[in-house]
């Protein structure tokens, strides 16, 4: 699955309809999986045993979401990312709270990052600028440039990116992705962001996530 699904979701040139369908499938899988309470016990052990796999899925979703922002398309795919993340984080949230592994930290930071993205996405006037900022933050390597982002509303987003990146360095081997180092100007991002119009169902999925998954107090600190 990792080789096939992750590669399709991470590849920037894969059609966004295909990404949308894969994400819809993943979202349904985790929804059905977490719905069956009789199997939750097994689910917990699975999450704990396979933290790496769950982190890999979340990392794939992060890459995919950033690519969608950069391309300014795929409203339905964005919807399914939020819906899928909600199910995975819910499932993972039921594991032991004393667990302080890197995997748990990654899920925690991912949740905060997606929460910040979700809150910003709900402010329609910020959308064009946000697409540009996300595309830029995602493609910049190493530590974030201190001059960016320009809008203070995006400061926490920048920090969330940094926190995730630090954990990703520990968790995943960095692979050379020729697309990842493409330079994205903020104007280009804004231009693309203007194309992106979030549907009512997409906004509902985002709101569901931000309402149901509270952001941790330490986020962004």
């Amino acid at each position, binding site marked *: *699955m*990792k080789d*096939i*699904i*992750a590669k*399709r979701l991470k590849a920037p040139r894969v*059609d966004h*309809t*295909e990404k*949308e*369908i*894969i994400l*819809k*499938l993943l979202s*349904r*899988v*985790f*929804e*059905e*999986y977490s719905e*069956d309470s009789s*199997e939750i016990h*097994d*689910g917990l052990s*699975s*999450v704990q*045993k*396979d933290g*790496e*796999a*769950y982190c*890999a*899925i979340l990392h794939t979703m992060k890459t995919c979401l950033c690519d969608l922002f950069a391309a300014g398309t795929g409203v339905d795919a964005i919807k399914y990312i939020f819906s899928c993340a909600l199910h995975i984080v819910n499932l993972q949230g039921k594991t032991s709270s004393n667990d302080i592994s890197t995997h748990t930290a990654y899920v925690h930071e991912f949740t905060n990052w997606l929460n910040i993205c979700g809150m910003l996405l709900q402010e329609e006037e910020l959308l064009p600028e946000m697409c540009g900022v996300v595309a830029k933050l995602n493609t910049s390597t190493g530590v974030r440039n201190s001059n960016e982002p320009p809008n203070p509303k995006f400061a926490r987003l920048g920090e969330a990116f940094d926190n995730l990146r630090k954990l990703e360095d520990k968790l995943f081997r960095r692979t050379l992705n020729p697309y990842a180092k493409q330079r994205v100007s903020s104007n280009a991002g804004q231009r693309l962001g203007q194309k992106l119009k979030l549907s009512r169902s997409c906004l509902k999925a985002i709101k569901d996530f931000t309402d149901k998954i509270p952001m941790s107090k330490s986020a962004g600190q």
Partner: protein
Amino acid sequence: MIPTTIGIKKSDAQDLCCRQSVGLICVLAALCSICTVPSTLYHDIFRQRKQDDDSQLIQHLRTAFSCELARLATKGFSKCSALAMQHFGDVLNDTIVSLFDFQSIKKHPTSNTTLLLKLGGEYSRRKGAEKLKQTSATDANDFGYMDQNLWSWCEDAGKLFRKWNLRDGHTEPNKKFWINSAGRAIESACTQIRTSEDGDSPHATSAEKECGMRRELLRSIFASMKQSHLSFGDLPGTHDGNVRSIAGCITKNVFFLSKTVSYYEEQLRWGCEDDDSLYKRAEIRAYEEAYIGFCASVLSDMLRRIVIGYMY
């Protein structure tokens, strides 16, 4: 073995090859009943070549071969039976791949008239209902080769696995127990489906119903694994091959599905908003809904039975 496609338009050529080659494959399976065949038969004939864009065709032929081999094995041809047992993993793999085949599901009309109405309006709902009514009265023979044979093949495979024993190539007794119980589970699921259909041919009248039947069959296979305390990684001769195969074939099918969805969405963006275009778009979205629901159900079931690391 596989006819070339030189000089013919690709899709037509593939259709032609598909139709004509199945006959050849059946002859090959029949030959296996009288000849001694090398153990590398599957690998030699059906291997996927690098940059092979006929992979769909090769998979189709491989499936037809497994189907015919299982049929001959249950008819009492001992050499076919021995060959099928020896290639237990391949036969099981092909059965599973066929159950996930989106193209064969798409041959059934959709019964999701609510979605047809929502996306395509009243015209689409009416057209969908008419198509459903027409197909209900259609003879099963109007469907393609594999669609006609899928359920009888599953039943044959079930009989074959039920009789599988240690002499047939693999080692551990608990795996024998699983193969036998998987065989029983497949056979009983097929019988149950046939009984609920009130007929000899368990032909679904809608894509949604077909998906439901396939899901039940796959669930019964997984349930038999749970009963035997086995995971996919324990299967003889397949290792985690079945998980990879399931993930791979779902991804392939999703790829083809997304191409069709993109085509109709693109048409809509270019302004094709006539009733028939809207119907086609609504119909493919209904198939998408059915197929994704089916795959999600099977995958979540697998997730309950194996650790996620195997899948991801």
